[in-house]
Structures are given as C-alpha cells and as structure tokens.
C-alpha cells in the first residue's frame, strides 16, 4: 500500500500533502518520541497523538513515510511547516490511536 492510498482507506484528513508517494512498510503506534526513535521502522506510518514539530523531527530522523495524528488533535502551524520542509506526510483522523492502528494493521498485515 502506498502513502496516498491511506487517505481513502482510513478516511484521513490531509494536513500536509507535500510528500514523495511510496510504499509503506509497516506502522508504529507510540506517544513517546524516544520509543519511536528506537523502534519505528523506515517507511513506516506513525500513529500518535503527539501533534508538534518534534514528532516531525523524529519521523524525519527515522525515515517514516507518514504521521497520523489521532483524536482530531489540532496541528500547530510550525508542525505542518516542518513536515512540508522535511517531505513527511501528515494526516489527521477523528478516530483513536487504537482504532487507527487496528485498521492500519488490517490493511498492511492481515494474512
């Protein structure tokens, strides 16, 4: 599945759409940035409620494909700007991290 296909499949709002479309490897759900740094995989999707520019910095560091911010959390302008500069896709969902993670797992990994 490609990054762009997430939007329809998960019903996401596109907050930052300036990214190079590519295949997604897997997902990672966490709100601790040090945990994301240590354990998230390149080309993965981060499911989180951390809506600030440090989440983008970590995503960029790890080489994540996209961030999905859950619970309709407001996205600060500097986060969106940082994501645009780094080419990290940022989406927003009205669902909880549990729901988004479940649906993402089913899309990517259900046998």
């Amino acid at each position, binding site marked *: 599945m490609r990054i762009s296909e997430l939007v329809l499949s998960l019903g996401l709002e596109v907050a930052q759409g300036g990214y190079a479309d590519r295949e997604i490897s897997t997902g990672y759900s966490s709100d*601790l*940035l*040090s945990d994301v*740094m*240590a354990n998230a995989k390149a080309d993965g999707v981060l499911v989180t409620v*951390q*809506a*600030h520019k*440090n989440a983008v910095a970590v995503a960029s*560091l790890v080489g994540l494909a996209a961030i999905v911010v859950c619970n309709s959390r407001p996205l*600060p302008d500097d986060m969106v700007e940082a994501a645009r500069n780094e080419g990290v896709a940022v989406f927003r969902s009205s669902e909880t991290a549990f729901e988004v993670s479940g649906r993402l797992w089913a899309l990517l990994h259900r046998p």
Partner: protein
Amino acid sequence: MKVLADLHNHSCLSPCASLELSPSLLARLARERGLGLVALTDHNSALNCPAFEEACRREGLAALFGIEANSVEEVHVLCLFGSVAEALDFGASLRGLLAPLPYDPEKLGDQVVVDADEGVLELVDQYLGASLGIGFGELCEDAAARGAIVIPAHVDRPMFSVSSQLGFLPAGPYDAVESLREPPPALTLGLAAVSGSDAHYPEHVCRRPFVAELPDGALGERGEPLLEALREALRAGRVRPSWAA
C-alpha cells in the same frame, strides 16, 4: 535586592542547541543583557558546568549548576545545584540511565564539552536528548535528596512537560514551576511560577528572565548559601515572572 535571574539555559553540549552557544558566550551575553543570576541546564548532563563556572567568575556573575533531566515519560525537569561537583555527580548518576538511542551527530547535532576558552575537550557519543530510564516522581525525589532545587520545566508546553506527558502535576518535592505563560492553578500546586529562557541559541539568552527578591549580599555568595537564598525566595513567592512584568 531585586535580581534578574534565568535558570534555564543550554550550551553546545545539548544536541539541539547551537554549536555557537558556548558556556563562555552564554555567560557574556547573560551579563551584557542584565542578568545577575544564571544557571546552565543542558539535557541530562552537567559536563559543561566547569567551563560555565569559570566563565561566570570572569564575568562577575552569580551562577548555579544544573541539568534539565528528561524522565522516562519525557517530562523535563530542572535540577539546580550550588556547586559544579554536585551537578557532575548527579549527571554521572544519570549517564547509565540514558536510553541507548542511535546517535548520528549529522542528524541530531553535536554534543561538545568545552573549556572556558571554547577549547574542545570531548565530543559526547551517547545521545543526551534521550529519555532516562527513571520515572518523573523518582527523578525529582532523587534530585531533591541530593539537595537540588527542583523545578518542573515549561509546565504549559505542548511537549516534554507535565501537562503534555502526564496530564497534570503530581505532588512532588518541587521548589517552583517554570512556565511559558501564566499557568493555570492545577499546574502550580500553589508553588511560585517562574519564567525561563530555555536558551538554545545566542539570541534566546535573556528572552524570558524573572525577577527574584534575594537578601542583600546573596549574590556575593557562592554555592550552598546562594542556592538556599534562591530556594527561600522561590518558596516564599518573592519572584516576578516575565509575563507579569
């Protein structure tokens, strides 16, 4: 006497801070911009405190020596000591608790230990921005037991704060809280709130100082007496943060 104080400053040891912001530049800018009392608080390490002590001595500035520690929940807390030795001891105790994250200086920034003349002494190869394997409560208790002034940092910030990571300020051995704006009562527990510059770049130095009312002569003191004079002012609420100026 009223003193312009700033207890939250980084140096080139913090990976996210400017390489330009050496302890000596911090001390010089602090004096030029009118601070009377200043602390160095790098992330999870006090290794630039010896240089900072010497730089502040040269500038005639009263200094405290600290660490901005990062708990396992990613809550930042300022821990301030009267002496460099105590700060270094505390820093050494944190070293083994640092999460072993991959550290690429190209991506995360350099971590440079310098002397008071900006000579490079060491490049720290363990990522200092990582969280520590110790809970916020235990971390604060440990620092307080070592005699530190303990101040939860930027309590109202949407990241790395008690409000963002825990949702509230639990009871603890704090002397004050640091806040960006006037904090809601739930984030102070009745303690005094101070402002702090959280300086990472030269232009940040002295951007959010606070005024402390200290006993006459307190700034002539060093070490323990200076720390305790500040603690008393904080506990008595004899401070005026930048948003109240």
